[in-house]
C-alpha cells in the first residue's frame, strides 16, 4: 500500500512537473512544433511511461542491431533515461501469432506493442477488441494508407512494408530477368527456396496475393522443380549467400540490404507482374502492461525519425505521406510500387486457410 501510495505521489509530481515546465518539454524532439496543450499531454504520457519503467515490444522484421538504434533514438526523442528499459523480441510471424493467441487465451498479455506482416489476422483481432484505441497524432500522415486498406484509424497502421520477392547472389548466379516467370525459367531444379506457407503467416499472405496474379499453374510448375521450403527470411538469405540455393523466391529486401552492408552482393527485383505488399501492422494491445510507454513508442515509430531508421536499417517501405526512401533501389517509394490489390479486411481467416490447403496440395511439403 505504502509503495503504491508513494508511486502515485511520484507520478502526480512528475505530471505536474511536466505541465508546469514547458521549458523541459521544449528540449525534447518529440515536442517540436507542439502547442501548449499538446505539450502538456505529451509530458503527462512521458511521466506515466517513466513510472511504468519499461516497454515490451515484438516485431517480425526489425533486427536487434536496428532495435539498438531505435531504442537510443526513442530515449532521446522523449528525454528518457537509460534506466527506462525496452525489451524487444524478434519472432517469425507464425510464432508471434501463436504466442499472442496463447497469451490472449491466458488473459496475460506480456507484449505492449507488436508489428506483424499479417493483415488478415490484424483486422480480425482488431474486431475482437484485442487492440487499444489510441489515435496517435502521427496517424494524420497515414490517411492515404488507411484509405488503401492498410490500417484502421485509431487502432493500427503500418510502420512500414516489404515484399517477399526473388533474391539471388550475383557472385554465383547471373540473372537478368524481370518477371516471376523469368525467374522460374532460369533457376535450376532443386536449387531454389520458396516461403513455407505452413510455417509462416507472412508467406501465406504473400501466396494469397500472388495466387491471384500468377494463377495456380505457375505454382504447379514451381512444385515440379522441387523447391526447398523456408519459413525464416534469414535462412533463405543464408542459403543464397553460401550457394546452397541459386534463388530465394520469398526473399526479404531487409536481409539483402543488411547482408550487402557486410560485403555480400545480393540482388532483388520487383517483378513486373506486381507483388504482394506486406504491411507491418503495428498496434498496442488492449491489456498492455505498459500502455503509456506503448503510446510513446507508436508515436515515435510512425514519426519521420522512426521511419528514417526503419527505412535505412531494415529497408522497410514507408507509407508516411511525403517520405522519401534513402535506399530506393531496395526499398522504393510507396507511390512507385506495383502492388497486387488484395482487400485484407474482407479476406477471412477461413479463406487464408483455403489458400494454405491449396498450397499444401500443390507442394505437398
Amino acid at each position: 500500500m505504502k509503495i503504491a501510495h508513494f508511486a502515485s505521489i511520484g507520478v502526480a509530481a512528475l505530471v505536474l512537473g511536466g505541465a508546469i515546465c514547458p521549458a523541459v518539454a521544449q528540449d525534447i524532439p518529440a515536442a517540436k512544433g507542439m502547442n501548449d496543450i499538446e505539450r502538456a499531454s505529451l509530458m503527462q504520457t512521458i511521466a506515466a511511461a517513466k513510472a511504468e519503467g519499461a516497454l515490451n515490444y515484438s516485431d517480425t522484421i526489425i533486427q536487434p542491431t536496428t532495435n539498438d538504434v531505435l531504442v537510443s533514438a526513442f530515449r532521446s526523442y522523449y528525454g528518457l533515461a537509460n534506466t527506462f528499459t525496452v525489451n524487444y523480441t524478434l519472432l517469425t510471424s507464425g510464432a508471434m501469432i501463436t504466442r499472442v493467441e496463447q497469451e490472449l487465451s491466458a488473459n496475460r498479455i506480456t507484449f505492449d506493442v507488436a508489428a506483424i506482416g499479417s493483415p488478415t489476422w490484424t483486422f480480425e483481432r482488431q474486431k475482437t477488441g484485442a487492440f487499444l484505441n489510441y489515435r496517435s497524432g502521427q496517424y494524420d500522415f497515414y490517411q492515404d494508407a488507411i484509405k488503401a486498406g492498410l490500417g484502421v484509424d485509431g487502432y493500427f497502421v503500418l510502420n512500414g512494408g516489404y515484399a517477399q520477392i526473388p533474391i539471388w547472389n550475383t557472385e554465383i548466379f547471373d540473372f537478368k530477368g524481370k518477371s516471376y516467370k523469368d525467374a522460374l525459367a532460369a533457376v535450376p531444379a532443386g536449387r531454389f527456396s520458396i516461403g513455407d506457407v505452413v510455417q509462416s503467416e507472412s508467406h501465406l499472405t504473400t501466396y494469397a496475393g500472388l495466387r491471384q496474379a500468377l494463377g495456380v499453374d505457375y505454382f504447379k510448375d514451381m512444385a515440379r522443380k522441387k523447391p526447398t521450403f523456408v519459413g525464416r527470411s534469414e535462412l533463405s538469405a543464408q542459403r543464397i549467400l553460401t550457394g546452397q540455393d541459386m534463388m530465394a523466391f520469398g526473399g526479404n529486401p531487409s536481409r539483402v540490404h543488411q547482408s550487402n552492408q557486410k560485403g555480400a552482393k545480393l540482388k532483388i527485383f520487383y517483378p513486373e507482374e506486381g507483388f504482394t505488399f506486406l504491411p507491418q501492422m503495428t498496434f498496442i494491445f488492449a491489456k498492455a502492461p505498459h500502455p503509456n510507454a506503448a503510446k510513446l513508442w507508436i508515436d515515435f515509430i510512425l514519426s519521420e525519425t522512426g521511419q528514417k531508421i526503419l527505412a535505412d536499417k531494415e529497408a522497410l517501405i514507408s507509407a508516411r505521406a511525403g517520405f522519401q526512401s534513402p535506399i530506393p533501389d531496395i526499398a522504393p517509394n510507396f507511390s512507385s510500387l506495383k502492388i497486387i490489390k488484395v482487400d485484407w479486411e474482407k479476406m477471412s481467416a477461413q479463406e487464408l486457410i483455403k489458400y494454405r490447403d491449396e498450397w499444401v496440395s500443390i507442394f505437398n511439403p
Partner: protein
Amino acid sequence: MNADPHLTPKKKRMTLQASLPLIGVGVGILLIIGPFLAGLIRSLLLWVGNDPQVSLANYSWLLTDTRIRTAALNSLICGLGAMSVSLVLGTSLAWIVSRTNVPGRETLRTLNLIPFFFSPYVGAIGWIFLIAPYSGLMQTSLGSLLGVSFEGPNIYSLAGVIWILSLFYTPYVYLFVISPLQRMDAAFEDAARVHGASFWTTIRLVTLPLLQPGLLSAALIVFVTSAGLFDVPLALTATKGIRTMPTEVFALVRYPSDLGRAAAFGIFITAITIVLTLWQRAHLSKRRYEIISGKGYKPRVIELRTTGTLIALAIEVLYLLTSVVLPVLALVLVALSPLWTGRFNPATATLANFSYVLFDYSLTRQAILNSLFLAVTGATLGVMLSGLQSYYLIRVRSGFKSFIDAILALPLGIPGIVLSLFFLIFAIRTPLYGTLAILLIAYIARFFPFATRTISAMLSAIHPELEESARANGATWAQTMRFVLLPLLRPALIAAWIMLFIIFIRELGASILLYASGTETISIAMLLLSENSVGYVAALALIQLVLLLTGFSLFRLTKVSAIQ
C-alpha cells in the same frame, strides 16, 4: 505431523520415515499424472461454437489423416535407424575400451562420453555448416582443391537426422553395455572357444545374448528418445517438408492452433511409450541373465594385432572426429566470421559475434541467466525429489513398488514437446503461464527419472546394515539420514545434480511451447537468433558448449560416474 500426543516415539519415527519418501513419490506421480490428465481431457473435447462437447473426433482424425501417418512413419524410421546405428557403434566402442588392449583406452573411455553431454541440436547446426549441399565446409574445401562445385551428401534428409541422432545417442548404448562387458565372466566365452566356436560366433552366440538386458534397455531408450526428439528434425528436415511426430505436434500448436488434435496426438505417442516400456519389463523378467558367477574370474582382455589395433583406433578417432571435433570446429569458424558464405576467411576473423551475444543483446544475456537459474534450481529440486523417491523404491517395503517404479519411469520415454504440450494445456489459464516456474516444473517432471535411477543405483549398493546399526545405537531416522546415508550417497547426489544441470542447460523440446517474453532459455535464444545471423547462433552454441563441458568435467570428478 509429530505433534500428535497419542503416537509413541517409535510411531512418530515411522511416520516421518514413511511420509517423506511418500511425499517424494506423490509429487513425482502428480507431476506426471496432472499434465497427462489435462492432455487427456483436452483430447476428448471438441468445441462446437463456444460449447465444449465430449467427443472422440480428435482420435478419429488421428486414424484418418495421411499427414499423421507419414509423420509417424518418419519418426519410426528415425527411431529404428538411430537405434540400429547407435547399438552397433556404442557396443563396438564399449567393447574396444573394455575388452581389448587398444592403446590409450583409459583416455578413450572418458572421451567416448563427451557427446553424451552435447546438445544434438547444436550438433545438427554444426553438421549443416560442415556438409550443407554445395556450401558446407567440406564441399567448399574440397571444391577449392579440385576446382569443382558438388552437392555432397544430403544432410536435409531422414538419413541426416539418423546420422546426427546416432552420433549423440551412441553414448547411451555405450553406458548401458560397458559395465556388463567389464564384469562379464570370461569362462562363458572360453567355453565357447574351447568347443570350437569362432571369434564372431562367440560374440554372436555368447557375448551379445549375455548383454541383452543392457542392449534392450539402451535400444528402447534410444528408439523412444530419437523418435520423440523435436529439435534435430526441426533443424534438418523442416526445409524439405519432411514431418515427424514431434514437429507435427509443434505444427498443431501453431496458429491456427488445434490443441485438441495436438493433445490426442500426444496421448497416442505416450500410449506407445507405455506399451514399449511394459513390453521391455515383461521381456526382461522372463529370463535370467547372470554374467557374474560365484567363482573368482578375470575379465578377458583381447590382445589386438596391428591391423586390429589400427581398426579399433580408426573407429574411435572417426567417432570422436564426427561427433565432437568437426562440428565444434565448424561452429568456431562460423562464429568467427562476420558474414558466413560457406568459406572461412582468416583475414576477416572477429570476436564480434561473441561480443554481441554476451554483452550487446539483452535477450541472450537474459536467456543465459534464465538457463543457469533453471539448471541450478531445477537440478537441486530434482535431486531432492529423486532422493526421496529412490529411498522409497529401495528401502521402503511396499507391494506397489514395481507399479510406482513403472509410473515414475514414464517421463523417460515421453517426448519433451509432448510433455510441454500437456503442461501448456494444464497451465494456460493459471498464474503459472508465461513464468519461469512452469518451465522449472516441466523440466523436473521430464527429467527426474534420470536422477532417480542414478541415486537408486548407488543406494541399492549400500547395505541397510549401516543404517540399522546407527538406529540400534539410538540415532533418530533423521540423524541416520544426515550422518550415515547422505554422506555415503553424496557422490551419487552430486552426479545426479550435475547430470540434471547439463540436461537443463541444453533443453529445448520442453521449453519451446512454454517460454514467454523474458523467460527465454539458451536453446530458445539460439532458435530466435537463427532469424538474425548464423554467426550469433554459432557463438551462442559455443557458449552453451562451454557450460556443458564444465558440467562434464565436474561429472568426471565424481566417483559415481566411474561406477556408471
